[in-house]
């Protein structure tokens, strides 16, 4: 239902005349729906801003939310949804902030049973529905960008390079090793090798559920790159099922040392560097 000039002016008069009562009731409904998780003052400010830009948009000749007169109103709405999405409110809680004006408005015009008022209300209702849908879309867009950010943060989080011993660093890999993560792992490892001057690196794949040719290729490339920088690599965490799968696939690790556990790999490196490891109990018995 498109808004014509006449109903626009009637509506904007209706919104202006009862401004105080309308925004107060509107704010009250929003406050109730959010159960006190945002302050009343903050909500009142948002509602007043939304109310004002609706009046401005109607005065400016708005017929559809998507047209050029709705720019300011759209900006206010997307600002509102961005805030709600970032503060962790649900999509429904966000949309209610817009839809609540319908209830507030209906209470205002209830005593006025004239047909023109009803028509105006229906026209405005269609506009409010558009506003609600727009809010919903902005909300989803913000959430998607949040998810993308988190995926990136997870990429960073899940690839630590730890120093195990003097001259020994380890990369415990967990989860899926796709090309993007393999790149991050390689960069981190090579940088840590330079920073710490470590001659040994252990790549632990205990947390990698399946080693296919792509994962193997990423690991092999990382090992070759580390070798070019003069460091020796050991791959640890090869469980029985992984070993059998690697053999069946036909992947060859060549002369790269591989161990079943991280402890074995560390012992192997310590032996190479000439560090003696003895069990204390064994020594006492001897």
């Amino acid at each position, binding site marked *: 239902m498109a808004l014509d000039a006449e109903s626009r002016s009637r509506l904007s008069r209706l919104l202006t005349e009862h401004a105080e009562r309308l925004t107060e009731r509107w704010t009250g409904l929003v406050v109730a729906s959010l159960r006190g998780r945002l302050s009343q003052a903050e909500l009142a400010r948002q509602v007043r801003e939304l109310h004002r830009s609706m009046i401005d948009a109607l005065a400016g000749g708005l017929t559809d939310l998507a047209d050029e007169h709705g720019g300011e109103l759209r900006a206010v709405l997307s600002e509102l949804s961005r805030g709600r999405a970032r503060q962790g409110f649900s999509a429904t809680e966000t949309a209610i902030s817009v839809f609540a004006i319908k209830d507030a408005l209906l209470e205002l015009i209830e005593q006025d049973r004239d047909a023109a008022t009803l028509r105006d209300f229906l026209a405005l209702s269609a506009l409010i529905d558009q506003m609600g849908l727009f809010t919903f879309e902005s909300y989803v867009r913000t959430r998607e960008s949040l998810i993308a950010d988190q995926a990136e943060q997870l990429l960073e989080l899940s690839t630590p390079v730890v120093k195990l011993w003097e001259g020994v660093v380890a990369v415990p890999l967990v989860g*899926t090793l796709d090309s993007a993560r393999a790149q991050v792992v390689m960069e981190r490892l090579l940088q840590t090798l330079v920073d710490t001057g470590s001659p040994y690196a252990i790549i632990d794949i205990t947390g990698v*559920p399946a080693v296919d*040719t792509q994962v193997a290729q990423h690991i092999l490339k990382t090992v070759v790159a580390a070798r070019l920088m003069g460091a020796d690599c050991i791959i640890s965490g090869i469980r029985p099922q992984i070993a059998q799968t690697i053999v069946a*696939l*036909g992947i060859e690790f060549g002369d790269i040392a591989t161990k079943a556990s991280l402890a074995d790999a560390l012992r192997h490196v310590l032996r190479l560097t000439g560090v003696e490891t003895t069990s204390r109990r064994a020594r006492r018995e001897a």
Partner: protein
Amino acid sequence: MTAGIDLGMPATQAIRSDEDVVRVRQLVRTTAVAAKLSLVDQTKLVTAASELARNTLIYGGGGAAEVTTIDDGLRRGIRIVFTDQGPGIPDLDLALTDGYTTGGGLGLGLSGARRLVDDFDIRTGVGEGTRVTVTKWSR
């Protein structure tokens, strides 16, 4: 060719992106666990599915994987069918040779996947797409 009757509805996963390859792996793992395959067989089947799903994506330009639990009266098994509408494989013998690749990988995906499963069937033709059927039986 694969024998045995289907148990339940097959689960289908579209393969359009790298994330879908991960989803295929998870679907196969869940199904294999439910069918009580041993840990070694689970890992082998999941790895084979990973290789074939990636081939479907990279060489077939995307497609789908269909995972079904089957029974031949004596034992249970998992059958996975990978289909794509890609260019097809011109020389199948060459493609199944260890170390041969047109991509940049290790060239072990297709031949390795064949060694990881019990039954392996491939239908392909230039311009006709590719259909790979693999089955792993519980022991």
